[in-house]
């Protein structure tokens, strides 16, 4: 069993490496886009799309599928990379990110990109949409779950807390939030711009079950997913401590790479670091 678990984690790590490569190539090709927040979320997204979510790329509209909403919509390069590698659309399409006529819009667009479940971009909206889906699933006695990923900077937004209150009020244990706690938002460190800590206590006070993990440790991630699914009578939030730009040494923890694409030279260095074939 332990060997199988180690192998599973090794495979997920390889997939995450592949998604990170896509993110860098996509944002480089687009000469824009949000690399830093995509890289911080890459392991969590990998765990969701390649381990957790019950989805079927051949039937993107399958009624009983799990839903995943990327409320931090600016990290869509990593979402698109996951969807393509999962078979929702061809991986060749990834390099059309942000181009005119592309299905891969600068921020996620519901109805355009197969597998995307909500429009996101203006921060703070996804958790509310997830609540609507979770309430609908409950009405229909459906067992699927709704997963919503928030950025940590997004926790500045009032709507997040309206939603946090609401999900707890309705005891939505089919709703799981994941906060990508990379500590950096557009203009700097979250604690300097608008202090979030003690973040766990805030979510607890709103009635949520809170799990804190290292968002780059697949063992911890998978364990948190299991714990979240086993939690009844209240929603769960996984606060995943991550590193913005994770995987590329010169991007890690650098505010600039929130919304900046890598240059030719940076791309070459980054891909070399990550490992794999040269571009």
């Amino acid at each position, binding site marked *: 069993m332990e060997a199988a678990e180690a192998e599973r984690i090794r495979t997920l790590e390889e997939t995450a490496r592949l998604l990170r490569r896509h993110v860098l190539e996509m944002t480089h090709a687009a000469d824009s886009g949000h690399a830093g927040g995509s890289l911080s979320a890459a392991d969590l997204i990998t765990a969701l799309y390649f381990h957790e979510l019950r989805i079927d790329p051949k039937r993107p509209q399958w*009624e009983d599928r799990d839903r995943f909403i990327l409320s931090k919509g600016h990290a869509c390069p990593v979402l698109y990379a996951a969807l393509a590698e999962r078979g929702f659309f061809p991986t060749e399409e990834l390099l059309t990110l942000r181009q005119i006529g592309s299905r891969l819009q600068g921020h996620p*667009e*519901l*109805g355009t990109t197969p597998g995307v*479940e*909500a*429009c*996101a*971009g*203006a921060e*703070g*909206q*996804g*958790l*509310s*949409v*997830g*609540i*609507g*889906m*979770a*309430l*609908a*699933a409950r*009405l229909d006695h459906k067992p699927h779950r709704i997963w919503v990923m928030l950025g940590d900077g997004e926790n500045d937004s*009032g*709507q997040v807390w*309206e*939603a946090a*209150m*609401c999900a707890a009020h309705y005891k939505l244990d089919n709703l799981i939030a994941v906060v990508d706690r990379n500590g950096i938002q557009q203009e700097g460190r979250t604690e300097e711009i608008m202090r979030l800590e003690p973040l766990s206590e805030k979510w607890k006070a709103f009635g949520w079950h809170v799990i804190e993990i290292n968002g780059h440790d697949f063992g911890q991630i998978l364990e948190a997913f299991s714990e979240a699914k086993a939690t009844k009578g209240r929603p769960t939030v996984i606060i995943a401590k991550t590193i913005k730009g994770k995987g590329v040494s010169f991007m890690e923890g650098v505010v600039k790479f929130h919304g900046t694409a890598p240059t030719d030279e940076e791309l070459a260095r980054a891909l070399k670091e990550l490992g794999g074939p040269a571009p």
Partner: protein
Amino acid sequence: MILRGPWKAESQRAYFAKALIELGRERPDLVVIGADTTHSLKTADFGKEYPGRLYNLGIAEQNMMGVAAGFAAAGKLPFACTYSVFGTAHVYNIIRQSIAYPKLNVKICCSHAGLTVGADGATHQMNEDITLMRALPNMAVVVPADGPETYKAAKAAATHAGPLYMRFSRMDFPTVTEAHDPFVLGQASLVREGSDVTIVANGIMVSRALQAAEALAKSGLEARVLNLHTVKPLDAAALEAAARETGAIVAAEEHTIMGGLGSAVAEAVSELYPVPVARLGVRDRFGESGEGEKLLDKYGLSAVQLIKAAHDVVARKAK
């Protein structure tokens, strides 16, 4: 006022609630969402009839609109119902990104629109909602004239595919339409025939337009009255015909003159068949506390002002 018609005043909210209850039976996928406004909008009646399908989400309208979007994305038919200032301006970007952009089947139904909120004053007198909602791609905008039309508009909203905004009033409105009158979304209703001038109105201004038309008839001017209950999609054909056949238009609305019905009429007429147009509406200012009917008069929306505007546009017709 001698021009006042013999109509009885009725609650649009009561008609709306009646429609919701019937719809609830016809459409098991219909859910209703409120924001600490479920008794005021009488959506609580729906909740009594269909336990578990009414969600009162408290004073948290941003969340409310997102939840409505999620319901619609999951295949439900959500009616998000509150006061118009909270259901539009307060949550505009939530509606824009989470509902209008993905073209989700959410019906935003708001009471307490316009000046006739009355005593609560300017904070609650939403005179800019039609402008805001009309500007959103994919969004339909409906302003029923009275109770029976509110009932029909709610029924029609349920069959309309895509996001829709509908506004009505806190104040009882004169009932000028009848249960058997046809109502088609996107088609202006001809409520009075006439060939000298056209008055285009919606909401409570339909009753005032009819009053004005009766008075105009006595002075020899036959006014056509169009009830433009659907501001979007706009019935451009009816407006072009009115311009062509009557040669002058007055637009009247309980709303700012910037961007609402009057603007829609002027935009269409100026492009399709330019004729003199006058717009009656709130002229770039906030309202104030007072009795609804009196506020309408004070803010330029009396039948007398309609009559004057009609004479003015007729006088401006090309000789």
